């Protein structure tokens, strides 16, 4: 029974780690109706730059704002060079443009900082929480718990921004219709820069958590692919949905791997989230919390 709880909690927390990455996707999608395929590459680029700056001699608390400034600059450049020329284009075109962007980020990250795997020490050990281990014999990683808390806080903050502030309304207007938002005077460029810069910072935070857990390496980009089922189950336009989607994906993945895995030789977690997402899509195409898609002829 204890083992079951361990797997359950482990799955919930690892799901929250996916939510952190998925949050960046939702942010951009909610604010500009663009699915940013490059989010995973941004996560990789952000945390790699952070670790790279630390290697160059900056200490932790200096490297952090420098990397944040870097991601803001990246947001500005992306808006100027990629998004502005493609304003108003179809969703598929923008998706493919972000796929190209993903490759640019991956390549630049490797050119700038090299291909070595690096560790990241955040001061929170990837060790079981002592009193839980001693009293209830359940092993829950401190790092995973911290990541879960960070994810929760970011979701709450971002939800509030989107629903309560003027900037948030502007973001939602831009997502609805770029041209219409421009015509009523919403500063499209500034909004896009804000959105992408924020997504970059979210990517940095997500990257730091993942980097501390599994090392800063190229495989981090693949994590973004895993975040897509999270988005689908939770809904592309829902910030709280990201948490729910993450929890479902995390639990399902871990449970399947632990209980069904041994019968089929393991490796189920590679495809189970996607198949799960497909089943969700067949029943509820817009995700649990997403907006219903209405298409008109």
């Amino acid at each position, binding site marked *: 029974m204890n083992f079951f709880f361990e797997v359950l909690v482990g799955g919930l927390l690892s799901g929250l780690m996916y939510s952190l990455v998925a949050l960046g996707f939702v942010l951009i999608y909610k604010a500009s109706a663009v699915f940013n395929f490059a989010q995973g590459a941004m996560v990789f680029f952000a945390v790699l730059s952070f670790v790279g700056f630390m290697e160059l001699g900056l200490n932790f608390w200096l490297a952090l704002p420098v990397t944040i400034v870097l991601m803001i600059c990246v947001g500005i450049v992306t808006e100027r060079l990629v998004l502005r020329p493609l304003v108003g284009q179809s969703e*598929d075109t923008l998706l*493919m443009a972000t796929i190209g962007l993903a*490759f640019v980020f991956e*390549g630049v990250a490797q050119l700038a900082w090299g291909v070595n795997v690096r560790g990241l020490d955040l001061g929170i050990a990837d060790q079981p929480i002592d009193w839980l281990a001693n009293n209830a014999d359940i092993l829950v990683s401190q790092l995973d718990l911290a990541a879960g808390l960070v994810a929760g806080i970011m979701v709450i903050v971002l939800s509030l921004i989107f629903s309560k502030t003027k900037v948030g309304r502007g973001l939602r207007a831009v997502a609805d219709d770029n041209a219409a938002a421009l015509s009523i005077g919403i500063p499209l460029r500034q909004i896009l820069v804000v959105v992408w810069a924020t997504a970059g910072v979210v990517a940095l935070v997500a990257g730091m958590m993942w980097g501390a857990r599994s090392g800063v390496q190229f495989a981090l980009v693949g994590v973004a692919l895993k975040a897509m089922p999270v988005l689908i189950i939770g809904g592309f336009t829902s910030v709280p949905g990201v948490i729910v989607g993450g929890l479902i994906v995390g639990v399902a993945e871990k449970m399947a791997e632990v209980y069904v895995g041994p019968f089929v030789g393991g490796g189920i977690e590679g495809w189970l989230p996607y198949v799960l997402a*497909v089943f969700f*899509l*067949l029943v509820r195409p817009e995700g649990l919390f997403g907006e219903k898609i209405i298409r008109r*002829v």
Partner: protein
Amino acid sequence: MFYREAGQYADSYAKDRQLLPLRQDKLGMMVILAIGFIATPIWASDYLLSALVIPWLILALVSLGQNILMGYAGQLSLGSAGFMAVGAFACYNLILRVPGIPFIGAVILSGLIAAGIGILFGLPSLRIRGLYLAVATLASQFFIVWCLDKFGWFKNYDTSGIINAQAIVIFGQTMNTPAEKYLVVLVIVGLMTWMAANMAQGSIGRGWMAVRDMDVAAETMGLSLLRTKLMAFAISSFYCGVGGALFLFAYLQTVEPATFNIEFSFRILFMVIIGGLGTILGPFLGSAFILLLPIFLNIMFHAIFGQAVDATIASALETVIFGVLIIVFLIFEPLGLARLWQITKERLRLWPFKY
């Protein structure tokens, strides 16, 4: 001036519906076929054939399949490498376990198996579109590769995890020189391209384009979305499956399931996008471009730096250039290289006039 169509009329419906109605086009195609069937096997070196021309043709075939799905039918798909894997492993197992099966028969059967699996994974397209469909096809990609990896039966319980292609035997002749393999590939790719061009021009192709442009409207006009979309998936997977079988037998000889990973799917996606969505020429141009780019970069590095560049730097630079090119193409010429070629032809028609 060089490409005048004046004086060439169609005097029957059949003539009007030809693939290449103009005399110049027919002549051009005959020249291309002559170069392909006669000149190339005689004069091209073995290296050129086995390292460039054969993969170009095979990847063009797979890109053609992907183009049918993405460019003509508008269904975003990231699973093309998975279907290649199905085709490759199916062909290998068929030749292994069915004694005396002819090679071409095995290739066609493995394409049909891939088509069946394509229909299965294409079923979600009836309910979901766009990006969501892309994720569903990712499911197919990961699941297929995992399946082929985990169940040793597909690999004939080989401990090293790879499969070795048997020799290609057609009508008792073993095709083992690059020139012979090239001819086999050329015949198959040529026939399938001709089929694809006919489909694109016919009612199937029009149905796909209607679904791409607005499937709700197409359905209200009476087009069966089920048949059209599943047909697109089936035919696209057939092409990818045949391409995969050829990839194994005529190009690499040894593959493992991980060869057909998600990166491969992305490369095919790039070939289709850069080559031009919704065209038959596009996949050929796109696959040539993607194959030649690393070579071209290498030559450029040699010219600029005078020495071979570190492999990791070269591959990272290649990745960046791919990404930049995709973005540039999408901004300036979303219809890709095929459209650039079309524009050139238009200019040639009117030259020396501007319009």
